[in-house]
């Protein structure tokens, strides 16, 4: 096991990783920007290095400064957390070249699954369903029709140079396709100077379901079941839960097994998340792999009783997984709400500033992963998440009730947060019925 670990991150995840280390008897070295010098994990660290000014590019993204701190701090390994350098295979590489373990997958596995197209190819090889589409550009109408028949209607026409929905068309049948194809090509040409388009099946009201994976260096791969992250705003997850509501047992099983197949095929180690979208018929399609620990990992910890960060550290240090798939028995229902320093009434604009007062909710089955306390100043330089409120209860309805209670207990003075917005979501009939999709927030709550 390691003696000393450097935590190359900030905020709640830095504290989360530090807690795991301390409970394992591992010393922690933290690096921080000038904006974070008063953070609690800086106080709790065995050693702390200021690595630069507030802006991430001058501090948390400075590989040389972090490695230098790691060498002076004489650490055995680096935990990258999420974001920042966590999926940077070059940083991963540099750590290993300096004989410092990178707590995560190998640079090779990271690149293999990090690149969307490579990952998509690997998924096909591993017999993991992907969204059916034309591999490559559509040259002409005949080809379009041929491909459309293969992948099935409705189809989505996408500009290869695409972005912002320009050059996008949905076609429900051949007639519509013929008309839409030319429109899309012209629109794409006008917008991007490139008329190249391709086809894929259009998925209506998709849900976001992901599978937590953990793998050791002995070929053991386990899934820790799924998380449903369909409550999103502009592709930003707001609420995550496990198990996924209304997902049939058979689909759940196949989804998790598919994730394991893909990860095995890539020779992936340590923790990772395989993301899928699930359509209204509960068919699932692979989207991408996140080669790191994720913000919402506590949801999985709560239902499985497994500490993911400790397991990450353990397998990185060369130990085999301490459990088998059969040992992993989920219990109850967990929900997480991300508490962001944002003002929902002003289009969720960030509200950095000093937290004058805070009452932190607690109680049976309640967890608040956060680095803030009264007097803490939320810096304007980083993402606006100040904490994650997580509850575990016997069933989904109890979990919703408990989360509502916790959200009303969470009193914060000095900055605006998304707490009340979460109450709006949790008390909405669609959420209670578990029928939200990834566009639901914009459609039902924000468009009105």
């Amino acid at each position: 096991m390691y003696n000393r670990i450097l935590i190359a991150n900030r905020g709640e995840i830095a504290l989360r990783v530090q807690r795991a280390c301390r409970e394992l008897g591992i010393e922690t070295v933290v690096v921080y920007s000038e904006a974070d010098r008063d953070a609690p994990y800086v106080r709790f660290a065995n050693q702390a290095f200021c690595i630069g000014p507030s802006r991430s590019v001058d501090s948390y993204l400075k590989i040389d400064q972090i490695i230098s701190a790691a060498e002076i701090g004489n650490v055995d390994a680096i935990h990258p957390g999420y974001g920042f350098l966590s999926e940077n295979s070059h940083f991963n590489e540099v750590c290993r070249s300096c004989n410092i373990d990178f707590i995560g997958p190998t640079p090779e596995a990271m690149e293999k699954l990090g690149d969307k197209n490579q990952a998509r190819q690997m998924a096909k090889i591993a017999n993991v369903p992907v969204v059916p589409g034309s591999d490559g550009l559509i040259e002409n109408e005949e080809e379009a029709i041929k491909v459309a028949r293969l992948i099935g209607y409705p189809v989505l026409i996408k500009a290869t140079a695409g972005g912002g929905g320009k050059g996008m068309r949905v076609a429900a049948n051949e007639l519509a396709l013929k008309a839409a194809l030319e429109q899309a090509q012209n629109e794409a040409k006008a917008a991007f100077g490139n008329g190249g388009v391709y086809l894929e099946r259009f998925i209506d009201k998709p849900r976001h379901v992901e599978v937590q994976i953990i793998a050791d260096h002995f070929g053991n791969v386990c899934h820790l079941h799924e998380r449903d992250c369909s409550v999103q705003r502009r592709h930003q997850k707001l609420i995550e839960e496990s198990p996924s509501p209304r997902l049939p047992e058979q689909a759940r099983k196949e989804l998790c097994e598919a994730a394991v197949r893909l990860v095995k095929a890539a020779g992936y180690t340590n923790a990772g998340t395989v993301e899928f979208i699930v359509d209204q018929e509960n068919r699932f399609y692979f989207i991408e792999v996140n080669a790191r620990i994720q913000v919402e990992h506590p949801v999985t910890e709560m239902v499985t009783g497994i500490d993911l960060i400790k397991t990450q550290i353990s397998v990185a240090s060369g130990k085999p997984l301490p459990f088998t798939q059969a040992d992993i028995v989920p219990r109850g229902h967990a929900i997480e709400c991300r508490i962001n320093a944002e003002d929902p009434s002003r289009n969720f604009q960030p509200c950095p500033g000093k937290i004058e007062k805070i009452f932190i909710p607690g109680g049976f089955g309640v967890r608040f992963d956060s680095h803030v306390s009264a007097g803490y100043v939320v810096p304007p330089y980083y993402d606006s998440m100040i904490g994650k409120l997580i509850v575990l209860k016997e069933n989904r309805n109890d979990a919703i009730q408990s989360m509502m209670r916790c959200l009303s207990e969470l009193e914060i003075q000095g900055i605006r947060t998304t707490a009340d917005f979460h109450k709006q979501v949790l008390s909405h009939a669609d959420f209670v019925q578990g029928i939200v999709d990834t566009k639901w927030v914009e459609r039902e709550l924000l468009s009105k």
Partner: protein
Amino acid sequence: MADSVENQGQEGGAEDVFSVERIRRLVELMKEHDLREIDLRHSRQRIRLCRGVEEVPVMQAPAMMPAAYAPAPVVAQPAPAPSASAEKTAAAVDGPHIVTIKSPMVGTLYLRPNPKAESFVKVGQSITPETTVCIIEAMKVFNEIPAEVRGKVVEILCGNEEPVDFGKPLFKIDTRG
């Protein structure tokens, strides 16, 4: 919040409500009686005066942790939240004419070009902005650090081969010298 004067409402009568003379007298009053705040309003007119610093309480940091320096440019006034060592020296050398050279990076500090050589600079020595004051080694790279200021070295704040991090005060320079 340092001394601040804030007013709202630009409507009539503002001149006399916000007369500098009155504010000056109010502030004297506050100083005299250690007032923290005066807040005067009339309809949309308002006079609000705040004195002194609202202390941002910093919990005690473990001794081994080089984190007790306030944000500041690489060359700046002595940090307002001084470390134990800075505390000791603050009394000795301080004032507007004293600037502190701080470490621009994390690394190991070398005060000599090599173990046998003399230090780059000594206390009392005059320096120019180009003078190399030390080397900081980071990832096997030896970075020569220029003074970036003209003056006389009055104090060397770190020991040879000591680990330093970003913003750590290294030298105090008297810019009058």
